[in-house]
């Protein structure tokens, strides 16, 4: 035993230390003329025409962990950044953000999902969505990493893990086809082949989706695995490839996953008129001025990209305190100047004006507004109207992927701007909102949502109506009738529960956010339907219990409108009148469900109702002030006279 310990200690002492990461520290981009490596670290060098293929040449897809990690030896640090760490146990939560949304119009399903455990979202494992299926559903817009790269789910043997795709952000030119990557992931399940195809390095023959669940890449079936034909013209005579990589990510790369487009009112029947009218929209004022997204949303080597909300620094400090080896990285005080307020006004300890940010004047706006409203309340997103507007996003509506048939109201139904008090700052803040809608099993106060496939397996498709073509982006169909809902619930209660395939089993990992066991194939409880803010049972309709909660909201910050287009720029009565959209909005939560959301307090309603009398207060004030001043002057003069005497 002692010998073993001694040998281990010696091995540790003699183990080669990792070389520090290579850097140029220049503002000039480094030209990446690099050797591509596969997952084993073997160089990839396809044979040129007329050349014999080298016996050692790899025919595997590019591994960016190996290729980029060769010089960027701090890859491990990078791999815990915001974009990659969601599935890691103990990953920081941060302010609630946009969830992934499981959508199925036929079953009226729209369920917000997140590995981060944001309140109001569901952990994918709780629904029975394992890492593999998560990638299959959402990997199209997910840069990879975490459990999605390392998971032991069965089918990852065929597809490969979803490694962090450095190129999806860091390529500058149009040399990266993110849509092609999405096809490889969602259609062909060729997860590990995605970056190779997207970067035009080669083409893939075959589809991992066609491989059996028990596929063994080391067994005789290996020959059935997808194959890569590299584009030899991309490689120079020593096997190097030039890829146009930059540190400061271009906006267009961010936009692949972070585009959002307003699509008008939920009750509009104009097809895709709003989508087609996007040429009328202005961009974010910061981008119009020539800034990059990463000028504010910047990051260090840890890739903990600054989100730019008030209180982010405090969150990071807490994360650092919570865990000695925090994934959040070391809290950096300068990020306080990367929020709207921090950048435009500065903080107590740091000056503002970064990137030449002007100091706003806000003529005539009493300072108490800054205690009550976030900057985004007046400046971000579309101007509020009497009804919240629909919005489509890349993550929810697969923007960036081609389509021929779509509508403005394409599912899932996300609405904006909906003004709510931010629980951290207590300021009125515009949000995007989704009302979860799903069938599930209710046990006590807990509802476990059902996957659409489980409903189909239960044979309720005929009751719910036709399933839309998977290639079309259709709206949520009309609301189900009480009779339809009852029939479905009845059928679910008697239908045999489908057995779980081994490939769909959720692997328990012992993480705090994961279920400790795989979900039962027969969930306990009674079938229910959650729709809008109601809970449908066989026994009748009840309001949704507070413990379940609806809707899920996350603050919106872009696009930022310039001063002249800000809320209130045309006068105080844009807000200070009863019925003003900032305080009173109707929300078409789902077809047939209108939620009347009034956020103004009774005091605010009284203030708004009497606001038109404000001019009288001002006149009375000035006259009184003049009289008091004159009286004071008369006294003063009289006193001066007395003193002289």
């Amino acid at each position, binding site marked *: 035993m002692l010998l073993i310990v001694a040998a281990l200690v010696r091995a540790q002492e003699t183990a080669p230390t990792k070389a520090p990461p290579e850097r140029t520290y220049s503002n000039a981009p480094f030209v990446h003329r690099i050797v591509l490596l596969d997952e084993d670290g073997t160089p990839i060098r396809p044979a040129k025409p007329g050349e014999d293929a080298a016996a050692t040449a790899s025919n595997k897809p590019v591994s960016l962990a190996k290729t980029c990690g060769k010089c960027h030896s701090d890859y491990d640090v990078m791999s815990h950044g915001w974009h990659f760490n969601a599935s890691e146990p103990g990953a920081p939560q941060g302010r609630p953000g946009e969830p992934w949304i499981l959508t199925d119009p036929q079953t009226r399903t729209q369920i917000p999902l997140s590995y981060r455990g944001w309140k109001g979202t569901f952990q994918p494992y709780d629904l029975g969505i394992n890492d593999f299926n998560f990638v299959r559903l959402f990997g199209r817009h997910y840069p990879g990493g975490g459990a999605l790269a390392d998971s032991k789910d069965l089918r990852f043997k065929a597809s490969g893990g979803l490694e962090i795709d450095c190129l999806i952000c860091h390529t500058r030119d149009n040399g990266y086809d993110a849509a092609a990557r999405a096809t490889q992931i969602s259609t062909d399940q060729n997860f590990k082949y995605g970056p190779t195809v997207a970067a035009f390095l080669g083409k893939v023959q075959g589809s991992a989706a066609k491989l059996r669940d028990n596929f063994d890449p080391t067994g005789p079936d290996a020959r059935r695995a997808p194959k890569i034909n590299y584009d030899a013209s991309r490689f120079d005579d020593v096997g190097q490839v030039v890829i146009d990589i930059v540190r400061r990510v271009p906006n267009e790369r961010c936009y692949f996953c972070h585009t959002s487009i307003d699509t008008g009112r939920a009750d509009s029947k104009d097809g895709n008129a709003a989508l087609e009218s996007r040429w009328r929209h202005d961009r974010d004022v910061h981008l119009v001025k020539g800034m990059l997204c990463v000028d504010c949303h910047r990051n260090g080597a840890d890739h903990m990209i600054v989100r730019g909300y008030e209180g982010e620094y405090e969150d990071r400090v807490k994360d650092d305190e919570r865990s000695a080896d925090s994934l959040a990285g070391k809290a950096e005080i300068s990020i306080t100047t990367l929020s709207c307020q921090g950048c435009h006004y500065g903080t107590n300890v740091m000056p503002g004006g970064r990137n030449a940010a002007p100091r*706003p004047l*806000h003529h005539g706006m009493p300072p108490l507004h800054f205690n009550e409203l976030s900057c985004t309340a007046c400046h971000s997103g579309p101007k509020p109207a009497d009804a919240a507007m629909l919005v489509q996003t890349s993550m929810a509506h697969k923007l960036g992927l081609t389509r021929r048939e779509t509508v403005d109201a394409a599912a899932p139904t996300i609405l904006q701007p909906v003004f709510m008090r931010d629980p951290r700052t207590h300021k009125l803040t515009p949000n995007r909102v989704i009302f979860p809608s799903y069938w599930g099993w209710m046990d006590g106060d807990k509802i476990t949502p059902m996957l659409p496939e489980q409903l189909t397996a239960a044979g309720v498709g005929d009751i719910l109506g036709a399933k839309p073509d998977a290639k079309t982006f259709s709206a949520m169909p009309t609301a189900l009738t009480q009779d339809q809902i009852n029939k479905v619930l009845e059928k679910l209660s008697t239908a045999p529960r489908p057995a779980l395939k081994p490939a769909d089993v959720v692997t328990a990992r012992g993480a705090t956010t994961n279920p400790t066991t795989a979900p039962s194939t027969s969930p306990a409880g009674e079938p229910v339907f959650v729709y809008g803010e109601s809970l449908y049972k066989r026994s009748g309709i009840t309001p949704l219990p507070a413990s379940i909660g609806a809707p899920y909201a996350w603050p919106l910050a872009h696009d930022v409108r310039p001063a002249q287009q800000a809320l209130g720029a045309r006068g105080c009565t844009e807000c200070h009148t009863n019925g003003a959209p900032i305080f009173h909005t109707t929300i078409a939560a789902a077809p047939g469900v209108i939620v009347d959301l009034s956020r103004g307090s009774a005091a605010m309603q009284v203030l708004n109702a009497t606001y038109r009398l404000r001019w009288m*207060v001002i006149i009375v004030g000035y006259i009184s002030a003049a009289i008091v001043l004159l*009286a004071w002057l008369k*006294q003063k003069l*009289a*006193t001066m006279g007395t003193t002289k005497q």
Partner: protein
Amino acid sequence: MQQGIAILALVVAGLLVLLDAMRLLPRRPCAGSAPLARGERGLYLLFVLTLALMTISSTVVLAFGAHMRGWMLLLHMTVAPIFCIAIAVLAVRWVQRFSCLVRLILLMSFATIITALFMMMTWFGTDWQRCWMTAHTIVSGILFAAVALQVWRLLFAKDTADVASAGR
């Protein structure tokens, strides 16, 4: 800072009254210090009441570290015009009363009203708005302390000299 000023105003008001009770403050008889007339008493009561309500809805709220909002803000804004009218009429009636305390009250009332009005105008940007807010808090704090002293002298200073110098 607003909280600090608010607390300071309340403390100074209390301290002034205490010092006066201990006869540590100078009380000079001044011209025009006749007792309040019947109509004037009602007006003065209105002035003190409105000032008290405005202090509760602003200085006290700020002293507890909260922001002026909701019903408190509404109360403040509703009472403010009545306060303005009351002090204006009192100012007319006090023209012949030459007391330092009265002059101080008139000056601070003017400053309090004008700084509040400036915050309602579109002439000033955020930085100036904040300046006016701070100035409003300071001068209204001084006004409160001065009126507190005046009220103390009117209500509790029994001897003639005290009444004469109550600064009416």
